[in-house]
């Protein structure tokens, strides 16, 4: 079993350092394969409340963590981030036509829903039809991502064929999306809103109860189609405040929290649990972005945007911020380490990524002067989410102060934040990239024109980015696609409509008895708990 790459972060506390070192050594040493044990209940913390229970309509880990174990998807991701691959879930096998216009899935024949009804191709078709063409009253937040699907054919009960309107290089990723849960067609026919009221899937765990703000309980589904799985008897997802997680894990109230902790909380848990902890650290497909409102002056001036990006010492910041927050990696618009990434030697030539920060800031001051805004005052709108938004805001404001820019930090509740974002009520917005997979189409979505993407907040009108985006999305050839995505990245960073601050590091501390969980570099996938077991 492979584990996430672990890093030892310098700390002032020697005992913690030793504990971390021990954990790191344990994790980097070849792991001895253990025979999984059956039984037990996994207790884990969830630090937010799900806004809904319909996979097709929600976007948050707050649902994915307690909800995903009840459902299956056509494909899924397997392995940890260093060895991640797309594999079948309900699909026993799958095939992509050479022209990229047809996908054929052969389904497992022994799958049943938790009410005992057999799962067939009709259920897959009904579920995807619901995503692509949601009936009135149904919210399908990922409808646009599936618009290239022309039709879905079901030649027999266990074969599904997706015919495409056009090539979509990200389509397999979408089929493996943790949000594309398969629902029962008969129930959807009776009531298209059924999944927003009832949890009924084919996953490894059957739904027992959900007490809002308290607990979500699931128990093993004995009719699960994979022999010998799941290992657990059940799970309990406990809804708690983020600042209660560390003490909760130390006190044994729960065994894990799967979103991610800060370096300080890691140290606290490691010290509290001593040799009873497993530390998993690694990359995270999440980044803080600062987005300029291009419909407001002077942010419509590329010199001003570039200057504000050039003022930020990303390299120094990454080194130091990673000691106190989850902000760790310098990167462009895709996750550092991802195969399509701009190489570092090219990245450092772009505005805001130079290694000589003094030179960069001198140039930033010159650009502001040239643009006639030497005494710039900015309103930075941020979320009142502690990690990593507030530390990111403090860092950014300090960096801008160094070129004489004064900033008002407006910290808003999540709803007010998104209201300000959609209404364009900001100078600069501290937002994020957070996806379930490394995929240029998903990560570049935020950098497009508002006409093209509902996710774009910068309000620019640069059609060159839209065109490059479409080209890369329609290119299956990996080398050609990489070239196009790097062109996109260079153009987007040069224009700086929206700029990446720092990419996050995912820090998970589990009670040592929790086995079989892997970091897939995001907090959405890898949560079906099928392979998780307790060593007790």
């Amino acid at each position, binding site marked *: 079993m492979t584990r996430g790459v672990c890093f030892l972060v310098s700390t*002032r*506390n020697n005992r913690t350092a030793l504990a971390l070192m021990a954990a790191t050594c344990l994790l980097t040493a070849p792991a001895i394969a253990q025979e999984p044990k059956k039984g037990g209940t996994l207790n884990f913390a969830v630090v937010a409340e799900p806004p809904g229970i319909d996979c097709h309509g929600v976007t948050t880990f707050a649902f994915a963590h307690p909800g995903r174990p009840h459902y299956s998807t056509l494909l899924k991701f397997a392995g940890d981030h260093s060895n991640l691959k797309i594999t079948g879930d309900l699909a026993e096998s799958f095939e992509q036509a050479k022209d990229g216009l047809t996908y054929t899935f052969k389904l497992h024949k022994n799958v049943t829903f938790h009410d005992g009804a057999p799962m067939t191709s009709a259920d897959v078709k009904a579920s995807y039809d619901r995503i692509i063409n949601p009936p009135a009253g149904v919210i399908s937040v990922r409808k646009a991502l599936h618009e290239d699907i022309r039709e879905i054919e079901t030649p027999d009960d266990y074969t599904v064929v997706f015919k495409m309107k056009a090539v979509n290089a990200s389509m397999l990723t979408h089929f493996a999306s943790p949000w594309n849960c398969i629902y029962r067609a008969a129930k959807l026919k009776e009531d298209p809103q059924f999944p927003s009221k009832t949890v009924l899937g084919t996953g490894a765990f059957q739904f027992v109860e959900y007490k809002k703000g308290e607990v979500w309980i699931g128990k093993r589904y004995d009719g699960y189609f994979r022999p010998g799985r799941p290992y657990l008897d059940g799970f309990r997802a406990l809804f708690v405040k983020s*600042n209660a997680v560390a003490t909760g894990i130390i006190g044994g109230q729960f065994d894990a929290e799967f979103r991610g902790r*800060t370096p*300080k*909380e890691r140290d*606290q848990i490691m010290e509290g649990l001593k040799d009873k902890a497993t530390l998993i650290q690694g990359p995270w497909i999440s980044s803080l972005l600062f987005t300029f409102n291009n419909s407001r002056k002077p942010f419509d001036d590329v010199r001003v945007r570039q200057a504000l990006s050039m003022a930020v010492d990303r390299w*120094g910041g990454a*080194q*130091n911020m990673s*000691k*106190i927050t989850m902000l760790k990696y310098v990167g462009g618009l895709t996750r550092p380490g991802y195969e399509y990434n701009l190489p570092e030697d090219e990245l450092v030539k772009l505005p805001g990524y130079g290694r000589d920060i003094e030179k960069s800031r001198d140039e930033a001051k010159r650009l502001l002067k040239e643009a006639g805004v030497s005494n710039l005052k900015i309103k930075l709108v941020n979320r*009142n989410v*502690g*990690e990593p938004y*507030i*530390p990111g*805001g*403090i*860092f950014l*404001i*300090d960096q801008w*102060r160094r070129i004489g820019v004064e900033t*008002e*930090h*407006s*910290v*808003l*509740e999540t709803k*007010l934040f998104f209201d300000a974002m959609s209404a364009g009520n900001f100078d600069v917005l501290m937002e994020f990239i957070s996806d379930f997979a490394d995929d240029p189409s998903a990560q570049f979505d935020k950098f497009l024109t508002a006409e093209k993407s509902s996710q774009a907040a910068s309000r620019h009108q640069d059609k060159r980015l839209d065109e490059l985006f479409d080209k890369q999305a329609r290119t299956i050839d990996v080398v050609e696609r990489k070239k196009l995505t790097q062109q996109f990245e260079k153009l987007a960073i040069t224009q700086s409509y929206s700029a990446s601050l720092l990419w996050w590091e995912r820090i998970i501390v589990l009670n040592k008895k929790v086995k079989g969980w892997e970091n897939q570099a995001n907090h959405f996938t890898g949560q079906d708990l099928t392979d998780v077991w307790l060593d007790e």
Partner: protein
Amino acid sequence: MATATASPPSPTISANAIPTRENLVLQFIKAQPLGFAGFLIILMYFVFAIFANWIAPYDPEAVDFGAMLSSPGREHLFGTDQYGRDVFSRLVYGSRTALGVGIVSSLFGCTLGALLGAASGYFGGKIDTIIQSIVDIMLSFPLIVLAMVIVAVLGKSTFLGVDMNLVAAIAIPMIPRMARIARSSTLSIAQMPYIDAARAAGYSHSRIVVRHILPNIIAPYLIMTTAFIAQAILLEASLSFLGLGVTEPTPAWGLMLSGTSADFYKAAPWMILFPGLAITLAVFAFNLLGDSLRDWLDPKMKG
């Protein structure tokens, strides 16, 4: 028609009995040494607030990664926080936020409360019933809960660097408390013969209230204002601690205790120790002064 030209006599002490300003200060020091100690502490905070630019050795908002979590010493008197910001400088500048928000909101809340209470007690009848019903409703909410609701509804609106909605959120819950006290004082004053004389002389209500009622409730007003400044500082710190008050990176005592600061309580206890002490000392000083003023000004407390 003859008109009254002279004001009716006010029952204040005669001119001979009024002590000189110098005597007044000495009398207070002699009679209330603890109150004077409180006054000196408050004075120190005022000096911090006014001369922060000269007193603070570092820019309170400047991040210095090279000095992250430095312990107290010659370089950084009270140490630094996780961003390498000087804790002493942030405390010195934080006194601006604390005193600014505390004094403005306390003055605003107490003045409005005194006017409402005086009107309620003076006019009586339906006006009294309406005002007191509103006061009762407002008093049924704990101070912090009411302030949280107000700040959540109003959001943020900055004027001269002070969040006016935060000031309002702290001031509004103080209005009913002051109104209740002002009303009871007014009720007793309104029975005085000189008020009857003023009415008989044909003075307008506003003149009677402003010239004869309000000057006579100045003592409870001063006492309550001083006491409320302490509460306002505490409330501002609590709201900032809860993420509803002042926002980072502005130096504010409550904010210095909030967020991830608590995570560093073992590695860098000075990060929470000194802001906690600053709040405690300020609240203690204002309470000392408030109590001493009450003892000194209220004749019922004498002897």
